[in-house]
């Protein structure tokens, strides 16, 4: 519990106004978790500023009082990155949701951090432009959160991740100073501080303005759905497509469980009896795009594809994507709870890891839905469990840990795009030596010397990992940390 809470609340209230401070437990509760409900931690105060100036003033108070604080966007994160693990002040940026400037000639836009990812594309679509990074949660997640986590999306194989699309940032540092990083051009002289900041998981500062690249829509786009009897054939097809030197915009894979959830929730037209489907999209000049359809189909055929269906128009294309992107969100259709992994493996290992996960699924007696970015080897096995059954969450976590270790063993990593956050901090030593971690901590200390901004994230605490309670209930994390 925050010391002097009443005084601090009063002071924060003067900065942001009475309608932007939340400090009672029956309201704070909604801020105690995000998109990954196995972790919970209640803030002492939530403030909802509406300008960079207000953010800076709030941060100054936190800095002076040595009160831990953390930023939150839409609360859709999947690594517990926005959880106030040590209580303190949670700064909600969702009210800072204005698109400030769109410069078509120079292909850039300036937005506030609370702008929802898809809003930017919606605002520029009529002029034939779009914002490329498109996490599956793009209907809800904020661009500020994307910057913090360096989010990927389904276009990653061709267009990269968030950091490839950010030109500059306005940032409030952990002492309240407002600084500019980068600028409006592709490369500013000196160190690439924007590159350092993007993906810092909310531990270096709070972005209050984002200068993002926008892109002209390509002349043509084609989306294919390839239906396979099993995951192995689909996995081999992915390797085949990449080996053929084709660079698709996306190669996404879904297994049968994922298809069941998506079809119940959205009805996107995926065949319910398929063992696996691939969604492959190519874009570019019309001639190039049309020339690519044939070799992709050929690779699929070599790998025993049952059917390759080319989306006949934009409506069908968008529906396929709507289904794919709603897959996590549709899991409630087939399971009360899920625990998503975000491991990465070299693409060539896809068939092996899929087989391994299937074995684990049998061993633990827990279903798995696979829906992921096959094109860049970024797995998302969703371990399905029911928190009402005693011990099932624990089993899910054990199983997740085995998957992660296997991925590292195959030369992969523990997170592709969701971030380390709270969830995977204890796994970091599996990937890095102590020296590696110390080097990273040194970088962190440059920005965040006192560690008051977003404590408890990324770095292992050394303690035996605490297990959270079932979702929807107050977790042990909260109890251990004493925020009752």
């Amino acid at each position, binding site marked *: 519990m925050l010391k002097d809470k009443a005084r601090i609340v009063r002071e924060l209230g003067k900065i942001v106004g009475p309608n932007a401070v939340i400090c009672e437990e029956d309201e704070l509760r909604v801020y105690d978790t995000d998109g990954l409900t196995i972790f919970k931690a209640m803030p002492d105060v*939530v403030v909802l500023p509406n300008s960079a100036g207000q953010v800076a003033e709030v941060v100054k108070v936190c800095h002076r009082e040595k009160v831990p604080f953390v930023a939150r966007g839409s609360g859709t994160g999947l690594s517990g990155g926005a959880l106030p693990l040590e209580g303190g002040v949670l700064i909600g940026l969702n009210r800072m949701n204005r698109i400030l400037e769109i410069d078509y000639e120079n292909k850039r836009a300036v937005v506030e951090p609370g702008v929802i990812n898809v*809003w930017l594309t919606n605002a520029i679509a009529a002029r034939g432009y779009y914002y490329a990074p498109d996490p599956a949660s793009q209907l*809800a997640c904020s661009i500020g959160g994307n910057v913090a986590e360096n989010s990927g999306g389904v276009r990653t194989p061709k267009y990269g991740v968030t950091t490839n699309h950010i030109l500059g940032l306005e940032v409030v540092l952990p002492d309240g100073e407002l600084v500019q990083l980068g600028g409006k051009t592709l490369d500013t002289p000196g160190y690439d501080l924007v590159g350092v900041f993007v993906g810092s998981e909310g531990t270096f500062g709070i972005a209050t303005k984002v200068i993002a690249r926008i892109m002209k829509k390509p002349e043509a786009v084609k989306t294919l759905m390839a239906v396979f009897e099993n995951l192995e054939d689909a996995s081999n097809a992915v390797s085949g497509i990449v080996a053929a030197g084709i660079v698709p915009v996306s190669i996404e894979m879904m297994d049968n469980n994922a298809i069941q959830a998506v079809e119940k*929730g959205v009805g996107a037209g995926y065949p319910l009896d398929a063992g696996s489907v691939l969604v492959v999209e190519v874009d570019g000049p019309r001639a190039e795009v049309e020339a690519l359809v044939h070799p992709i189909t050929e690779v699929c055929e070599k790998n025993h594809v049952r059917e390759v269906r080319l989306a006949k128009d934009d409506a069908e294309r968008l529906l396929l994507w709507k289904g794919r992107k709603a897959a*996590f969100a549709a*899991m409630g259709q087939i399971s009360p*709870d899920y625990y998503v992994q975000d491991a990465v493996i070299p693409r060539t290992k896809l068939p092996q890891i899929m087989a391994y996960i299937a074995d684990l699924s049998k061993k633990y007696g827990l279903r798995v839905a696979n829906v992921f970015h096959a094109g860049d080897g970024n797995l998302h096995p969703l371990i399905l469990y029911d928190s009402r059954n005693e011990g099932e969450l624990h089993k899910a976590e054990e199983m997740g840990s085995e998957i992660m270790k296997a991925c590292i063993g195959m030369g992969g990593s523990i997170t592709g795009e969701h971030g380390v956050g709270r969830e995977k901090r204890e796994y970091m030593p599996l990937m890095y030596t102590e020296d590696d971690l110390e080097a990273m901590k040194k970088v962190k200390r440059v920005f965040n010397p006192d560690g008051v901004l977003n404590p408890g994230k990324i770095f292992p605490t050394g303690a035996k990992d605490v297990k959270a309670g079932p*979702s*929807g209930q107050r977790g042990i994390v909260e109890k251990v940390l004493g925020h009752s």
Partner: protein
Amino acid sequence: MTGPAADTIAAGGFDRIDPPDTEIYLDCVHCGFCLPTCPTYLVLGNEMDNPRGRIYLTRAISEGRSKITDRFVEHMNLCLLCRACETACPSGVKFGFLMEAARGQIERNYQYPPAEKRFRDHVLRTFTDLDRLETLTGLLRFYQQSGLQRLVRASGVLSLFGRLGKMEALLPPIPDQRLRKELPEVLPARGQKRARVGFLAGCVQRFFLPQVNASTTRALAENGFEVVTPREQGCCGSLLVHEGEREHAKAFARRTIDTFERAGVDFIVVNAAGCGSVMKEYWELLHSDAVYRTRAEAFSQKVRDTSELFAQTPANGRLRELPLKVTYHDACHLAHGQKVRQQPRNLLKAIPGLQLVELAESDFCCGSAGVYNVFHPEVAQKFLDRKIDRIKETGAEVVVSANPGCTFQIERGLKERGLGIRVVHPMELLDWSYRGAMPSGLRRI
């Protein structure tokens, strides 16, 4: 169909009468897809005022970790029950049922301040009691026609009446009641009879928009439907369900079922989205009623929005030119509540000469939401302003609305901005087209 099983009934801070269904909590995976589609989240900007937050708060009470507090009630009551979140939710969370059940709990277990309670009761009784409405419309029509309204508004005396004064500002013009009284009990089908349908005349619709009912029944008859408007029908209970007065609503639902069962009809046709939505869900409202449960299920199966009926049996060839530029507003309880979006648009497109332009954010709540604009006028105004901005962008001459609440709300918003745009029901347009009679004052394209 969900209904609480015995072992899941009641816990924590809720009582045992229709507690929120715990299965609904489990459907929610906390993804946040609903957030940007929730009007109150966009306007109020905090996570207590969005579906994910409201589910979380409700669940905490169910599980005994929290209680029904003032703040809980405030956030639950700020919900428009527009159900845009249901459209957005890939996991199929039945948020409307959860909210209705939670409001039922609030209604029984929370003590409103006495003045608040009186105000709520007064508003709900007024809009759901036909006798009261009859008296009221008479008085209000006199108030408006006699010039008294102008006098009162000019005097500034309304500001002394607080919320009642604000309600006065929401008053639509009260039409001549002859049209309502002339609605025949049975209107024969023209040409070959396709089906016999029972028509719900509604409460507000009947008194405040009798021309819509007249147009609806005529258009139905023109299309081969024999239209029965049972005289003894009352309120369907829609407003009461939304406001948590479930027991009262159940009584109304049983009476409505009785009435239309007696009428012996193939379908029950509704031209007010809010009423239709609740009637299609009588099965849920009456799920614990041993006598009415199966009857409610059968009844709900027969309920159709007018536009659905026309979609099944397309409008015939007698339509005449209606050279109007119109835009269509999706009433929440049609688009989100009943998943009826395309049928009314198809109907409008079938009218020759009529140009339909799409309205941006057409399914974003206008802020009427039953009596929401009476209980939360300031917040409701923000939704209305947004709606009017979008309407203005279309350049349409007419806004089409299939729900009386939306119609009044949007009409008022247009008038406030001095915009000469008319709000009409799709059945009115269809009726005009059948009769080749477009009312004066509308600009042709």
